[in-house]
């Protein structure tokens, strides 16, 4: 059963082909970013700034990959049908996680040579010895355990990414049909549990422990909410781009899919705001010095502007821009809001990381540009490589029916098989015409 329809649907979308433009841009980014990074690294003055910038850029690609992995797991968990058309794009970003693991290695090297980089204060044995609070946390905050945790996190994430993305690619090749889908649904629940635990402790390890005296029980959820917004943004951008460049075929990804992505994006933008507000408000209201110093630093001096910008970029503007229903189907708007939210993620991570090195005000100079350019280049290189080899649509997914959207709320259920595009072209257009008038 799986062989025939997958032949049929692959006829409807173009075969994978290289994207030279993206690859060339990626190579330039990698070279420029790499040179800047090396320059900052070898300069005694800028080395510490480079370390923080590296963590900053690393956290961004980490959030992209892990958020996409969450998205894929979630679709399997809730047995979602509509998302089949965009799930491969998420699977593509989830597959990035092994690259993130490689990019973690330099970070670990900084930690080992901490005396030269000074990233995490708890790595400074001298400081720990003279601070009873810090030495009280030694059981958790120490380099061997930190490394072991990171290895376990990456092992789990890579295993799950290989499982979900690999399984879906296997279906494309006609191997494994319904059984693979059913197995992925069953695996999704335990995956979610492991995801929640690993993502939380990874955020505590890599981001919260930059200020080892500070603590917040919601921190893992805070990082998670930003992560999901980031992955949804990048999935939305990629979907619109792949659709307009014709790589997704015609009529397969409709306005309804954009609408659903827009709804999820809107929902998680609100969720981020809710979590951020909960954390901020409770610490502000309680006003206990042992936790409020973290916020005071971010509200003082030059950082205040950034804190306000964060609220605007990550919540107010996207909220207003995506509130109305037509806005969510408007591809242009979805893309610019998504770009804004990606900037917001950079801003948010900057807000979490950088006050630890620049106490008085945000500082941006060339040492801060190296790592982000390098990693965005690596991300683009990965995407061009993926698209050269694989289709951006899970054509082998044996789902029996998919909703073809006429309007955001009105859809007909049709088979994913050959009739799909045909149905959309003829029947759907007629319905759409009637409904639009």
């Amino acid at each position: 059963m799986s062989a025939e329809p997958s032949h049929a649907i692959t006829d409807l979308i173009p075969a994978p082909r290289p994207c030279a433009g993206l690859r060339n841009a990626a190579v330039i980014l990698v070279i420029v970013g790499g040179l800047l990074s090396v320059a900052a690294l070898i300069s005694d003055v800028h080395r510490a700034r480079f370390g923080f910038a590296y963590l900053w850029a690393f956290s961004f690609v980490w959030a992209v990959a892990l958020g996409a992995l969450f998205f894929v797991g979630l679709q399997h968990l809730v047995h979602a049908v509509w998302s089949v058309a965009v799930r491969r794009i998420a699977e593509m970003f989830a597959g990035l996680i092994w690259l993130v693991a490689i990019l973690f290695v330099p970070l670990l090297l900084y930690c080992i040579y901490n005396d030269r980089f000074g990233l995490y204060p708890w790595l400074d044995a001298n400081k720990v010895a003279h601070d009873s609070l810090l030495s009280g946390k030694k059981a958790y905050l120490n380099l061997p355990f930190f490394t072991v945790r990171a290895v376990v996190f990456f092992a789990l994430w890579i295993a799950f990414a290989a499982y979900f993305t690999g399984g879906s690619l296997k279906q494309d090749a006609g191997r494994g049909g319904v059984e693979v889908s059913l197995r992925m649904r069953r695996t999704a629940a335990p995956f979610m549990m492991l995801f929640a635990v690993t993502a939380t402790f990874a955020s505590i390890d890599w981001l919260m422990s930059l200020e080892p005296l500070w603590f917040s029980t919601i921190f893992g959820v805070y990082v998670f909410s930003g992560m999901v917004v980031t992955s949804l943004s990048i999935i939305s951008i990629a979907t619109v781009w792949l659709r307009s460049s014709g790589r997704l075929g015609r009529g397969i990804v409709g306005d309804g899919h954009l609408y659903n992505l827009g709804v999820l994006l809107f929902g998680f933008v609100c969720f981020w705001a809710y979590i951020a507000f909960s954390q901020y408000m409770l610490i502000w209201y309680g006003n206990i010095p042992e936790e409020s110093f973290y916020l005071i630093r971010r509200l003082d001096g030059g950082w205040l502007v950034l804190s306000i910008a964060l609220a605007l970029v990550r919540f107010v503007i996207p909220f207003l821009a995506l509130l109305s229903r037509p806005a969510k189907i408007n591809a242009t708007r979805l893309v610019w809001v998504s770009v804004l939210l990606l900037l917001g993620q950079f801003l948010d991570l900057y807000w979490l990381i950088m006050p630890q090195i620049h106490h008085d005000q945000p500082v941006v100079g060339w040492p801060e540009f190296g790592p982000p350019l390098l990693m965005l280049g690596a991300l683009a290189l990965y995407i061009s490589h993926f698209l050269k080899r694989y289709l951006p649509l899970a054509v082998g997914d044996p789902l029996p029916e998919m909703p073809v959207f006429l309007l955001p709320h009105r859809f007909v259920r049709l088979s994913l098989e050959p009739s799909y595009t045909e149905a959309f072209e003829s029947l759907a257009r007629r319905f759409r015409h009637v409904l639009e008038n």
Partner: protein
Amino acid sequence: MTANSTALAPASLFVGDVTLKGLEDDIYRPLESFPTTRWWLAISFTGALASIFALCAGITVTQGIGTWGNNNPVGWGWAIVNFVFWVGIGHAGTLISAILFLFRQRWRTGIARFAEAMTVFAVICAMQFPLFHTGRPWLAMFWLIPYPNDQGIYQNFRSPLEWDVFAVSTYGLVSLMFWYTGLIPDLATARDRAKHQFRKFVYGVLSLGWKGSNRAWSHYEKAYLLFAGLSTPLVLSVHSIVSFDFAVSVIPGWHTTIFPPYFVAGAIFSGFAMVATLIIILRKMFHLQHLITDNHLELMNKIIIATSLMVGYAYAMEFFMAWYSGVAYERYVFLNRALGPYAWAYWTMAICNVLAPQLLWFKKIRRTALLMYPVVLLVNVGMWFERFVIVVTSLHRDFLPSSWDYYKPTLVDIGLFVGSIGIFLTLMLLFCRFLPTIAATELKVVLAESRSEGGHRE
């Protein structure tokens, strides 16, 4: 379509051959027949319980709050525990009707009406406790609601208790209106089916003259969508604000940033458990197993286990951060919870809320009403204990060891809680007899859709 790939299709929401007429008859039968002996027995019992509430409320009002078990370090006792418990139960209804509606989850139709009714009644029960805690409830309006007065005295807007007044009353009102909006077409059906003139008149008035015209439906759908959109932030905000009651303080065990989402997850958890507890009885008594199917139970159980894990995550995170923070008071409070004089309550909570729901990993248990019933009962118990643990264990050993005390409820406390259960169940029993317990009109649409899909599949 081969049988193979239908394994991935959504589960059916009906059992057997359900017709539009049969569906309507089944839903309206309880409204149109004389109550059974069992119903009379049940309502006599719950009515008796409710009268205990009246009695204990009378004692509270005439003799004062001193009749409760509150003591010096534990200034908040069962009253706030019960308040949070009932508000939590009131969360499932609006979650099902609003959030699941926005997510286009069609299975919500079978249980939405019942859960919404539960929400409204649970909020009514919840409001009793702060109201009687004021000592003179008839004056509470002046104390709680800001109004212009020549004394220039206003409520303390910086107090989360005042936010509670706004949050809970807004939630109660919107839930009531949402519920009623959904009821209108069904009330019209009750009117059209009515044989007796008086009955026709009453349901006619209640259905606001609904005629089911195209225009009316169009407005109705729009209103329903708007209500869903408005209720969604409310579901989150109410219990977040309830959590602020505790979290804005600086008491170890109360002041922690995860409280808002943790309370919301707990509320959904307890709400779904209560829906499951009652709807299993309902579908058995009214023979509605073909409309509220085992598939519905399974989906509800999945939400129960998901929220159970979220609550478990919060418990664990609180413990971890208490250690990680290095703050001696935080550490002590959590150790005291698990090992101190209230360890029995703590472990009851942990076993009921985290351990017991793990049984729902088994498909057999999720789909068998008799097997899942003990689990959801335990969740109801566990969620009451969660609030007890949060309130009492954080207070009973405060910063000054000389004032440490052990909190014990009095008979009046117990009577008020048991009585509130009586009020809740009495209202539920009346609801079952006077209003359609399933959203009949909506369910007909789902039935028609699922039929046309069956056609597609062939």
